[in-house]
């Protein structure tokens, strides 16, 4: 009997985006349940906002998103805590170094990409810790199980043209799929790319992939506090 070919599902994300953490954890759980090949694509949200335009949420929408994130992450058992100053985290400090570091790992030792992603999300959206400084990135790398020498070497490459170009290309690939935010999921269904924005199209995506939706699947949770 022929093994069905795994369907490719790309997750474009930036670790500075809270809904991206939710989508990331859900997809990591579902790659164990569905016949999919999950490809993590760290990109640069700031580049997406520049490319597609951006409406800054007003106070009532921002307030709602804080409540929504708490309820959604409670339901999905993701240990999310809003940082004291989310605007500073997202708009001022940003994620350029983190995005380049993830890119370097993706290019050289992608077996660590999932756990490094998780450790960066835990820093910013569980412990309200920095993700811009070299020491912060080394700490996340250590928790992700990346050997220190390797982590140091990858960190030294984050200003290399090849790494910058790769992050830019990944961001452009998302823009070419019509992305305007993070997370952006591209599921390849019957040879056609289907782009989904956000962390709340999972049941619809299941329907289109011909898979079953089981809800939050907290028993498959990997994010530990």
């Amino acid at each position: 009997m022929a093994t069905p070919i795994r369907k490719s599902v790309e997750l474009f994300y930036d670790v500075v985006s809270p809904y991206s953490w939710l989508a990331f954890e859900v997809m990591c759980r579902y790659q164990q349940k569905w016949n999919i090949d999950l490809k993590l694509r760290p990109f640069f949200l700031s580049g997406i906002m520049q490319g597609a335009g951006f409406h800054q949420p007003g106070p009532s929408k921002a307030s709602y998103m804080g409540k929504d994130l708490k309820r959604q992450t409670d339901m999905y058992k993701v240990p999310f805590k809003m940082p004291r100053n989310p605007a500073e985290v997202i708009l001022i400090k940003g994620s350029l170094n983190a995005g380049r570091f993830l890119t370097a790992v993706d290019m050289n030792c992608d077996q660590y990409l999932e756990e490094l992603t998780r450790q960066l999300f835990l820093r910013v959206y569980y412990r309200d810790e920095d993700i811009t400084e070299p020491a912060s990135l080394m700490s996340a790398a250590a928790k992700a199980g990346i050997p220190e020498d390797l982590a140091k070497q990858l960190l030294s490459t984050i200003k290399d043209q090849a790494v910058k170009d790769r992050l830019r290309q990944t961001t452009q690939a998302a823009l070419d799929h019509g992305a305007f935010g993070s997370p952006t999921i591209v599921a390849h269904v019957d040879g056609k790319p289907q782009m989904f924005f956000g962390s709340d199209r999972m049941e619809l995506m299941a329907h289109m992939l011909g898979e079953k939706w089981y809800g939050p699947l907290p028993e498959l949770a990997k994010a530990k506090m």
Partner: protein
Amino acid sequence: MAALRSRKVVELFYDVISPYSWVAFEVLCRYQTRWNIDLQLRPFFIGGVFKETGNKPPALLAAKYTYAQHDLRRLADFYKIPVKMPPMERLMRRENVNSNRLLTAVTLDCPEHLENLSRELWMRVMARDQDITEPASLETAATAAGIPSDTTPQLLSRIRDDDVKAALKDTTNQALAYGAFGAPTIVAHIEGTPVMIWGSDRFPLLAHLLGERWEGPLREMAKY
């Protein structure tokens, strides 16, 4: 034997120019027979919400508008609702408020027709790309919704009445008081506390909050 429990009130604030409001409306209409809820339809004016909150209509961002066209096509298939994103010119017409005022008049005068008329207006503007601003259009919709044709001229004239305009403003302000910034806005009253939920993609969460079960799109209950 099931214990008698009082129904939980779920208010749906919606505007017929909002395609995602149609999705929320149909889902809640299907689930009001499954869940122990008292669904209360609250037609409001999304233009007023945008004005008060400074939130921008998503359609104004080209990438979001394009995405919504695809998203709605897929949701139409998933939920079996013939919803399509209307062209920009229809979305942005100021006269769309006429249909909100008509729905408000129906809420005041003959609320038994509110569900059918809401659905018929969405069928016009979303499924058939037809006008919902002109008196003739609204009269056709009212008749198609089952409102007796001898009462429609009087009902249509109510669009210009001060009490109708005030009631629409009042409903919109109620939604704003709950923290609304867009459409649809769902307010579930859980043990005396109103919980506001935005959009048509939080039904599993709503089920969880209501102590009910989400059983998916229930396409077999589609009215189409």
